[in-house]
Every structure is written in structure tokens, then in C-alpha cells.
């Protein structure tokens, strides 16, 4: 491949390293975390950060550091799962509606416009409200809300690729439509989709935290970042550390996703210019 004018730079390195560190900590949670994240110790409530409890303890005397570490497993793993399921749903729809610009397409596009017109968090709350609070319902709601923007993004990519001469050329070589989609269009969409996915991971984590904060997502005692923030609100004045650390955790993860996707966006723009 040609060398791109953008080489590795600070923000990409920081972003990737941050993400790797976060994921590693999550994977190694049982070995790293100093305490059991679910163990209640009422004699140790609201302990400020110390050597035994680096991030302090919460209103039930649970170690906040351990809870944040185990929270990685929940937030990151489920955000990833949600993203994959959304891709599985929206990739074929986006491909097909982008490739065949038939009239039936308008139906899908208006449905998507309708979904996109309502802010994410409002629609998710409405859906969770109907399904009832809970982790699984929250995941379903997020998928139902996020798929539209995925389809729209994939469709716009496919529309652009279909204008390329090599698609016509592929058809002239006798390829079936299914093969053109699989062999010619999918590989080209791959790298923009990775960027989109990375950016969206951050958004999903934020959305999950937001819903859990409102009590619609993860239920106690699950160590989820948003749920931890909610627990902290009641004791904010006497134990501010309860709120600060989960907040910083969310911030760092979203930051890592943003840094990576931002960098890739620029890389991709450079690629496109060269072609």
C-alpha cells in the first residue's frame, strides 16, 4: 500500500493504548481487582480513597475500584455485543437498499428518517419504558434505536461504491448481484465501518450508562458505571469520590473511542484523496 501522509501520531497512540489498557484490565479483572466488587461491608461505608481502598468505598462499603474494573467487563463487552448485533441486522439492509434503488426503498428510508428524527436517548427511554427496565431490554432498545443510523451509513457507502466503474465492469464479467455485493462492495466498506464502529462503541457505552443512571438499564448490584453514578447521587455531598471515579472511567473510554475514530477518519480521507 501507498504511504499515507498521516503517520502514527500522538492521539492515535494514546487512543489505542488507552483502549488496550482498558480492555486488558477488564479481561484480567479477577487478578487485578483488590476486593470482591459485590461484597458488602457496612462497617466500611463511605471510606475515602486510601491504600486499602484506592478509590474508596460506596454506601454499602463495596470497593469502588473493583466495581469499576468489573464494570469494564459489562460496559465494554455489552457495547461490543450490541454493536455486532446491530451490524448483523443493518449490514444486509444497507447493502441491499443501497444496491437496488427500487421504489420499495423509500419505505425503508422514511422509516429510518423517522427513527433518526427522534433523539437517541428519548427513543431508547420510550422503548425501555414499554419493555420494562432491565439489562436485556436496554440492549434491545439500543439496537432498535441505533440500527437506523447504521443502515443509513452503510447505504451511503454502498451508493458511492456503486457509482464506481468497477461495479459495472464486474457485472460485465458476468458476476451475479450477490457476488458483486460480497466480493466487490463488502471489502471496500470494511475500513469505514471499523471507524464508524469505534466511534459508536463510545456512544453506546454512554447511552448504556445514561440509561442505567436513570434506573432503566443495569439493576443493582451489577457493577455498571452508569448504575454506580446513580447510587452516588444520593451521597454526593458526603462522598464525592463515589461519583468522580465512575465518571472518569466513562470519560476515558469514550475518549479512547473518539481519539481512534477521529484519527482513522483523517487517514481514510487521505486514502480517498489519493484514489
Amino acid at each position, binding site marked *: 500500500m*501507498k504511504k499515507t501522509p498521516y503517520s502514527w501520531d500522538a492521539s492515535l497512540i494514546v487512543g489505542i493504548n488507552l483502549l488496550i489498557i482498558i480492555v486488558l484490565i477488564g479481561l484480567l479483572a479477577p487478578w487485578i481487582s483488590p476486593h470482591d466488587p459485590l461484597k458488602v461491608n457496612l462497617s466500611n461505608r463511605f471510606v475515602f480513597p486510601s491504600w486499602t481502598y484506592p478509590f474508596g468505598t460506596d454506601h454499602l462499603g463495596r470497593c469502588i475500584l473493583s466495581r469499576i474494573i468489573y464494570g469494564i467487563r459489562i460496559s465494554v463487552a455489552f457495547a461490543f455485543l450490541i454493536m455486532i448485533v446491530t451490524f448483523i441486522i443493518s449490514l444486509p439492509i444497507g447493502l441491499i437498499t443501497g444496491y437496488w434503488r427500487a421504489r420499495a426503498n423509500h419505505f425503508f428510508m422514511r422509516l429510518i428518517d423517522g427513527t433518526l428524527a427522534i433523539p437517541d436517548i428519548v427513543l431508547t427511554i420510550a422503548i425501555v419504558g414499554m419493555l420494562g427496565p432491565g439489562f436485556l431490554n436496554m440492549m434491545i432498545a439500543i439496537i432498535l434505536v441505533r440500527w437506523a443510523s447504521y443502515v443509513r451509513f452503510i447505504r451511503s457507502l454502498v451508493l458511492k461504491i456503486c457509482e*464506481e*466503474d*468497477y461495479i*459495472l*465492469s*464486474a*457485472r*460485465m*464479467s*458476468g*458476476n*451475479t448481484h450477490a457476488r458483486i455485493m460480497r466480493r*466487490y462492495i463488502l*471489502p*471496500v466498506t470494511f475500513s469505514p465501518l471499523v471507524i464508524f464502529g469505534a466511534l459508536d462503541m463510545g456512544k453506546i457505552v454512554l447511552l448504556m450508562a445514561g440509561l442505567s443512571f436513570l434506573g432503566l438499564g443495569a439493576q443493582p448490584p451489577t457493577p455498571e458505571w452508569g448504575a454506580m453514578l446513580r447510587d452516588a447521587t444520593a451521597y454526593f455531598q458526603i462522598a464525592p469520590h463515589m461519583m468522580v471515579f465512575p465518571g472518569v472511567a466513562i470519560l476515558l473510554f469514550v475518549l479512547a473511542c473518539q481519539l481512534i475514530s477521529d484519527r482513522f477518519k483523517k487517514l481514510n480521507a487521505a486514502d480517498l484523496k489519493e*484514489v
Partner: protein
Amino acid sequence: MLLELRNVTKDYPLRPRRTSLFKKTPRFKAVNQVDLTIKKGEIVGLVGESGSGKSTLAKLIMNIEPVTSGKILLNGQPVHGKRMSDLTLYKQMQLVLQDSSSSLHPNMRVKELLEEPLRNYLRQEKTMREATIRKLLKLVGLSPPFLSRYPHQLSGGQKQRVCIAKALAVQPDIILFDESIASLDHPSQMEILHMLKHIQKQQQLSYLFITHDLKSVQQLCDRVAVMYQGELVETFSRWDPDQLRHPYSRLLFQTLN
């Protein structure tokens, strides 16, 4: 008759939406009442200035766009009819596009690109395919090491040769060249013209060679059709400036000297 165009007309609306219910939207005639026939084994050149409707005509012939009126027959079958699927059309007729770099998929090696038509149309087996690909490559003047290269590792002329090999692999009756060699430098243009002439003699193919460069037409074509503002104003086969009727073709001839 291999390819027959009867009164082919194509117009586009000038404004995308009509402003009034009762007024007709003005339409622009890109191709106007074109009659043209190409016999088997004949090379026809189609010349004209930019915007004269040459490329639109190529798109109509390839059924990439529908005609407004008129008929295009390939081996007696209407190209735009329901019975002609695009794959059966492409089996008989191939188009080599102007921009060779964008008509080859960036992530596929030359070998994969050439294998596709053989597998899809001719259903050849693997060993047979290998042999055919090598033959094709030799025909267009490339050596076997090119097989493992990606399009961005090839020069413009080499890419265009790969495109021509890809069209030849289908074993069509006729190949359309839409300004295919216009972006190349003069020596490579000459080489490709020689090669095309050689291949045509060998395989009794027909070409429709669309270009704005009369010199290359003079080298290659048996007959020349001149297009001017969407109309086919003249066809001639003898290179005699005194016999030309239309002022535009005379003007074209002057550029030759």
C-alpha cells in the same frame, strides 16, 4: 447484421421537476435519431466532439440507460427487451471504459480479475482457466508475472491492457471502446491500436471505437461515423476529404493534417 441501431433517440429532462402541471418540461436530446449498423468483423469508428452524444450512445447500446425511442438490435434481438438479461447481453458485447484505474477493483489481483469472466461465462475448470489467462495475457502483450499484481502496481497502459484482456476473456462478438485509450500517451496508444488490429484479425471480432481522435480512427477503423450535436451526420469509409458532405466532418479532417 451484428449490431443495428434504428432511429435511436435519447433525451433528458432539462429541469428535474416540472414547474407547472400543464407545461411540458423542456427536454434535451443527447442522441437524436441515430441509425448505425455494424457487420461481423467490422471496425467502426465513432468520432465527434465532447458532448456530441458518443458516450451516451455507448451507454444505450450496453443497456446501462434506457432509450427514449428507437431500437437497438444485437444479433437480431432487441437489447432493451425483457427477454435479453444483462448477462446474456454482456456475453455478446463488452465495453472497455475510459478510466482503466477505476474500472479494476483495487483489492483484486490481475489474475482474480481475469478469472471472473472465465468462471462465470465459460465455466472453465481451474487448470483450463490458468492456461486461458496466460494466453489472454500474451495476447495483450503482458508477461505472466503481472498476474500477481494489484491494479495500483500497474501503469495506465498496462491497466488498459488488463481491461481489454478482461473484455476478450468473455469471447464476445463485439467490443465497444469508449475513449478507452484517450488518457494514454502517444506511443502506448499506437501499441494498443496495433494490438487491437492484430486481435481483431485473429478472432474476427467487431469493434465500435468511440473517440475524439481521428488519427487513431484512421489507423484502426474500416468505417467512420461522425456525430455532431447528438446526430449522426455522416458515415464514410474512404479517407477522401472531397467526398465529405457535412462541414463538421470537413473540420475534423483539417485537424488531421
